[in-house]
């Protein structure tokens, strides 16, 4: 009988001696190294992306000094983003000479700027005259420092090197390139908000239906179908939005640009719904059945139980689901490329074309010169996306943990 337990002996010091189990040790090490490897890969990707945008930072100090001298003379020259540290060390100064405060002279480079501008290879005729009007009121309100293009209250007043980032226009390829991240950011935000306004309620209500109201049979049918939406390649959703939804909604609302933030939002909602739905559904279903019973036994109807007991109890999970949905929409590239119109316009109108961060990278990365400022800026946008989704996930994680502890274990 002792064959399955060869070590079964009397209770002696010998039998209790520490043993080295090689296979277990190896398995443990392999598993943990795989886990750490994945973390390392994520960090390496981020470091690579960030490294490529580093030239933007490398020139920072010098540029700051530069611009401070310039401001005293009244000429706020935005120097920015360059490679003093790298091989082709040619400081690039762009944007905003002092004259740009006057409406008509925007973008015309001053003499001292001319020699250093180095974008001739990709030079394009400038056709962006209209934007000067946008800039004017903002800059006029500024004091002696005269930072034009400060659209929003940009705190780092000293950091003028970056101020093209806060300009309203995205003109990366030009004699006088401007990398107005604001327009892209607002565009991304607009699409994200529209998508979440559509996807959030739909997905959560669908989740409430399947977890609180539907019979088991219906749940078994509905859940996989909605989740199947996640299997749709985003290019298919983008194509559908571009060909079908755009026309459909144009007929209804009658707006001018066929592809716009709204269409992009609708299409991205299609991509976000399965994520939000699945996670909210899990959160709702994992609310203990005892709560449901308690509520029903008090004479609450199904709807009252669902909305005043189950939904509040599942809030942390639903919150996490929404954040993941935001992350999905924020980083979605193909749908943005296909359905949003890709024009970096700054406006609050949801029916204007927009361009998102991700779509900008997707459409321009292949056409930039390696190591050039435009290239660095695109990588900087990549880092921004990375940081954003990192923050989003962190918030989701910590918020959920904090709330769960507070809600389910008491104070």
């Amino acid at each position, binding site marked *: 009988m002792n064959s399955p337990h060869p070590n079964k002996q009397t209770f002696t010091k010998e039998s209790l001696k520490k043993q080295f189990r090689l296979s277990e040790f190896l398995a443990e090490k392999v598993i943990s190294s795989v886990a750490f490897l994945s973390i390392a890969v994520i960090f390496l990707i981020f470091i690579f992306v960030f490294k490529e945008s580093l030239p933007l930072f490398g020139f920072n100090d010098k540029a700051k000094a530069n611009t401070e001298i310039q401001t005293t003379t009244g000429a706020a020259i935005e120097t920015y983003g360059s490679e003093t540290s790298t091989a082709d060390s040619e400081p690039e100064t762009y944007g905003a000479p002092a004259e740009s405060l006057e409406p008509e002279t925007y973008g015309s480079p001053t003499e001292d700027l001319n020699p250093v501008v180095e974008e001739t290879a990709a030079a394009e005729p400038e056709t962006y005259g209209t934007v000067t009007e946008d800039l004017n009121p903002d800059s006029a309100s500024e004091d002696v420092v005269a930072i034009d293009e400060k659209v929003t209250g940009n705190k780092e007043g000293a950091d003028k090197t970056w101020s093209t980032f806060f300009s309203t226009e995205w003109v990366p390829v030009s004699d006088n390139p401007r990398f107005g991240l604001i327009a892209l950011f607002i565009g991304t935000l607009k699409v994200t908000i529209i998508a979440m306004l559509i996807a959030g309620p739909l997905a959560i209500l669908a989740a409430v239906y399947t977890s609180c109201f539907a019979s088991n049979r219906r749940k078994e049918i509905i859940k996989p179908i909605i989740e199947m939406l996640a299997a749709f390649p985003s290019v298919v959703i983008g194509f559908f939005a571009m060909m079908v939804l755009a026309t459909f909604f144009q007929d209804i609302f009658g707006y001018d640009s066929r592809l716009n933030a709204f269409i992009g939002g609708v299409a991205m909602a299609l991509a976000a719904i399965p994520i939000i739905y699945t996670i909210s559904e899990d959160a709702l279903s994992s609310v203990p059945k005892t*709560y449901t019973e*308690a509520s029903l036994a*008090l*004479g609450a109807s199904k709807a009252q139980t669902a909305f005043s*007991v189950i939904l509040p*109890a599942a809030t942390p999970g639903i919150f996490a689901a929404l954040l993941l949905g935001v992350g999905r929409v924020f980083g979605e590239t193909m749908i943005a490329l296909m359905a949003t119109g890709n024009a970096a316009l700054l406006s609050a109108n949801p029916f204007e074309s927009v361009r998102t961060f991700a779509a900008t990278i997707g459409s321009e990365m292949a056409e930039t010169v390696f190591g050039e400022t435009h290239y660095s800026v695109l990588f900087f946008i990549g880092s921004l996306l990375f940081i954003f989704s990192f923050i989003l996930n962190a918030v989701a994680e910590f918020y959920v943990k904090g709330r769960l502890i507070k809600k389910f*274990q*008491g104070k």
Partner: protein
Amino acid sequence: MRDIKIQVNDLSLYYGEKKALKEISMQIPANKVTALIGPSGCGKSTFLRCINRMNDLIPSVKITGELLVEGIDIYDKNVDVVNIRKKIGMVFQKSNPFPKSIYENIAYGPRINGIKDKTQLDEIVETSLRQAAIWDELKDRLGDSALGLSGGQQQRLCIARTLAVSPDIILMDEPASALDPISTSKIEELVHELKEQYTIIIVTHNMQQAARTSDHTAFFYMGELIEMGKTNTIFTKPEKKQTEDYITGRFG
């Protein structure tokens, strides 16, 4: 047995094919405590859950027979299950306060019944907690999470929550089985006080508890009602052999 609150006629319950309750017929008197005893799996909890139709939540359950509460068959098609449960409250074996504050736990029931007035809610909360003999312990921490209470306090909170919707009948499914002796005795005292105003049906595994708290006792075995009568009689001179065996601890 005068003042019959609940009249059960040939009630049978099926879980799919399995017959879990077999032609139960009994009468439950008003403003008394009726204990349901029997070994695990004998159907006493199932029977209890029939009384406020909690078994409706299980899709495979089928029920035949009649269950008349004050002469009205609660399984009639025209009876609204939500209204039944407002009149027939239930306290569960495991205390299950909502993940809300103590105040909100109590106020939930009145709120879903449409009471919005703050002073009225305050009043209900206080009276319910007083009735459940837990007001003095909790009055200073009504805003705290109910999940931070001890098990016994949670269970009494659940009783208070049930009282807040002013039911006629209170069903208790082994309300003290997970509690320590002190909390148990508090719950038992509470049951004793509450029977003035409510009809209470209590399922218990604890023979002493049944003997201490109840006026009538029903013994279930294998889905059948074996015997029902005054608690004194059941515990001293049971008519059936099975009842005697169970009560004296020979099986179950």
